[in-house]
């Protein structure tokens, strides 16, 4: 099931066609490679625009990452680890 985490994570990203793409992130001591970005959306909090990415990891697990410009920082907001 989904776990709501909101854990700060380190994320390696690339800019592709002017858009940021998460490539891999470190969570709980391990590095998760992003196989595919399956969704992308934004949410405004005050004057901060948070960017969310649903991503597939190497296995069957999926995650939702959030870029919070107020840090700036990345947060693993939800994870589905089976």
């Amino acid at each position, binding site marked *: 099931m989904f776990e709501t985490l909101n854990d700060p994570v380190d994320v390696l990203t690339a800019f592709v066609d002017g858009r940021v793409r998460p490539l891999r992130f470190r969570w709980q001591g391990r590095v998760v490679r992003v196989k595919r970005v399956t*969704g992308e959306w*934004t*949410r*405004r909090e*005050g*004057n901060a625009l948070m960017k969310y990415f649903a991503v597939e990891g190497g296995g069957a697990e*999926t995650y939702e990452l959030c870029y919070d410009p107020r840090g700036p920082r990345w947060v693993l907001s939800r994870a589905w680890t089976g």
Partner: protein
Amino acid sequence: MSDAARSGRDTPRRWILLADMDAFFASVEQSCHPHLRGQAVIVCGDPSRRGVVTAASYEARPTGVHAGMPLAEAKRLCPHAHYVEGDPEKYVAMSLRLLEHYLTFTPDVEPFSVDEAFLAVGRVGGTIDEARAIAAGIQRGVLDKFELTASIGVGPNKLIAKMASGVSKPFGLTAFDQAAFQAHFWPLDVQQLWGVGQQTSARLKGLGLATVGALANADRRRLEAMFGVIGPHLIDSAQGIDHTPLIPYHEGVDPKSMGHEVTLPEDCRDTLALEGTLLRLSDQVARRLRSEGFRARTVTLKLRDHRFETRLRQRSLGRATDDHAQVYEVARALWRELWKGEPLRLLGVSVSGLVPADDSQQGELFAVDDRATRLREAMDKVRDKLGEAVIVPAGSLSYRRALGHVPFGAVSPRTGRGEGAKRDAATGDDRRGGKPEGWPDPTARAPRFAPRAESDRGPKHPTQRDGEPGSDGAGPDPRRRGDATPPRRVTRRDRDL
């Protein structure tokens, strides 16, 4: 069939499509989380709280779970399903991408809800087969690009397109001209007609009009006597006649109402907590009014008790307002009239009779409470910068203390018609198919295309009356003029403050 006949007008028109995404919220979750594909997915509010089912995937539906069902019942019927907390912004983002897709086929796209859009396609006087081919192309594109399925209805007008879209789901494509519409729908129960809800249906059946066909052939004067101006509209609808224009999103329309409602974590009869809740809801509604540049003339209160009985009552104000204190004052007065001390499950406050704030201020320059206005402006600035939950009316804190959370939703959230929305034309009986109460309507933030944007629900069906109680779950209109400011939402962290 002639153009005139199929449009119900004298001039030829283009064919109308209604693209309706299948189990939209659940499908978006399956798309974002591929391991959920092929599995029963139920989208809801916080699964650990009580609430209702927002959307159920087609895999979950054979168990009897449907949108609007209490979550506890869904868990009993379908314990193996994946219960996913819905994320309105996620669905709005997908809705916008879908609209972009539709716009590659025609510039005439009217978002109707977060998961539905009307399109005018083909050439004027084109054939139904041409329209059907375009619909098939749109449907394939949605599947290829987004891995989602849409059911599309094709018709000479919005009514027929809308009703045709529901004939074959999921991934259906149904094209009806007026004759085919009549052949299909006339034998069916009158409640199948768009705009006819449970209460109107019961009244029609009381007149011996049990089927759509019987209504189509009913005596106009008799119906008018029973239902007022809605009566002849009902007959027209049953005949497949609808003159409602398609309004492309870029033309924009103003919203008719706005509102917020919340399902309480547990049935509540605590006066302090309930009044605090009303204050919070009134504040949210007033904030929305101000942020979108409107004032309201009518306040409507909605109560749902522990037996699921829903009551609405509305009252007009002496003059239009965007002040939460005035909205609250009326909402509380209505609440005191309606509430008999029974445990309440849901509270809602909505406003209607909207007028542009600039217009409504004329002539009352000297009546404005300057201090209160400056206070509201200061609060709005703080919220614009830091978010909705950072500053709230003190009275609403009693609600938080008593119930432990703030209903989420802020400026733009609005309940309303999303998946499966339907309402009763004559009674205002809203049979919306399943946003959990208190859940921001994604459509509220929906389509925000430049230069105009945001909308929630599209126009009402012609048989709907403006300002009737509960006539709106509220929320900005997708075609409303607007800016590119994305919606905001009170976060979990905010809620837990």
